[in-house]
């Protein structure tokens, strides 16, 4: 198989682009896709200081790597979820990456902020672990950004993540989620920072290939709580679809973003207030994060 650009030996086939690339040309392709994502959604300015949420996995470290190389000023944020050896190892990957690239890394602990690590939160709430985990991460990303005077958080969500989320939202007709799904979410309140996903145009396999070719040391093992997760099942469904119809995933996601999302957004208007306890943004009186922390406190 030959590289579409230079004719050399290809290392990766991208059927959805009817192409194959050698390593250097694939890295160029990858960076160009990130540039296009940033440009199309005006994600941030060249001189803006970005908070990059990193987990130690391939996507977030690949994102951080590209942003550093593109010359952006970045600070990483690692959220220690307290998930046994997985968290110990993933934190180490982030610290090693940050040290090697000489970039700052903030570490925040869910255990300290919520009152318990994710495995205990799971037991206390009797809900899937991803529920308390996701809630805590979103809250803390926003709050840490505010605490440090940063106006935007970048996460490593990729095309497969976004397509799977979209698929789940449609099959369950979660219209509020459909209204909010975007590669770039603006700040709609003084205490809400922008959230952007510069990798949204790139598939999970492409991000993995980037991380591999750049010799980024990321955690390959999955979160122990991810087993059987619905999102993974949805990704498998979409991957089967992609197998028979290359390009189906990006047509699905990009088509939604270009043609359908606006209609859902118009239909779902929400009033935002500040939590009476912590001052962060909520639609209620006390935010879900404070309620979670209360629940943990009562039961531990």
């Amino acid at each position: 198989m030959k590289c579409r650009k230079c004719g050399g030996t290809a290392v990766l086939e991208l059927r959805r682009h009817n192409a194959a690339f050698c390593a250097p040309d694939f890295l160029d392709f990858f960076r160009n896709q990130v540039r296009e994502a940033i440009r199309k959604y005006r994600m941030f300015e060249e001189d803006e200081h970005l908070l990059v949420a990193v987990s130690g996995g391939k996507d977030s470290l690949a994102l951080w790597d590209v942003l550093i190389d593109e010359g952006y000023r970045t600070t990483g944020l690692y959220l220690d979820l307290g998930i046994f050896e997985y968290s110990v190892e993933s934190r180490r990957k982030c610290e090693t990456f940050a040290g090697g690239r000489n970039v700052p890394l903030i570490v925040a602990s869910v255990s300290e902020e919520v009152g318990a690590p994710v495995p205990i939160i799971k037991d206390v709430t009797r809900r899937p672990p991803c529920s308390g985990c996701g809630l805590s991460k979103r809250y803390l990303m926003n709050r840490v950004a505010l605490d440090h005077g940063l106006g935007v958080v970048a996460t490593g969500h990729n095309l497969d993540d976004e397509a799977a989320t979209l698929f789940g939202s449609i099959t369950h007709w979660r219209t509020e989620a459909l209204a909010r799904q975007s590669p770039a979410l603006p700040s709609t309140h003084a205490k809400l920072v922008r959230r952007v996903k510069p990798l949204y145009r790139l598939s999970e396999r492409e991000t993995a290939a980037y991380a591999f070719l750049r010799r980024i040391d990321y955690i390959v093992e999955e979160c122990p709580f991810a087993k059987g997760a619905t999102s993974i099942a949805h990704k498998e469904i979409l991957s089967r679809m992609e197998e028979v119809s290359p390009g189906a995933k990006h047509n699905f996601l990009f088509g939604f973003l270009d043609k359908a999302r606006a209609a859902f957004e118009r239909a779902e208007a929400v009033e935002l207030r500040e939590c009476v306890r912590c001052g962060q943004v909520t639609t209620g009186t006390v935010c879900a994060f404070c309620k979670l922390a209360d629940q943990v406190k009562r039961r531990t």
Partner: protein
Amino acid sequence: MKVILRNPRREVEMAGGRRVKEVLRELDILPETVLVIRGDELITPDQVVRDADTIELRPVMSGGSSPPNGPASRARVE
């Protein structure tokens, strides 16, 4: 050939002299869900894997979080 699989890590012995795409088909692994690694390089589906080769099929799919329920959780930042 030796095929290394991950999550959990295990090894499978298979006859060599076959293309990567055939190996994936036989193991019922979707190409979109793995990186195919031989040594320290990525290889494409048309590449032939020989008897003496060792390849790793590294899974790329991660997951576990679904969008939050309820209104405005975009900031479950709430």
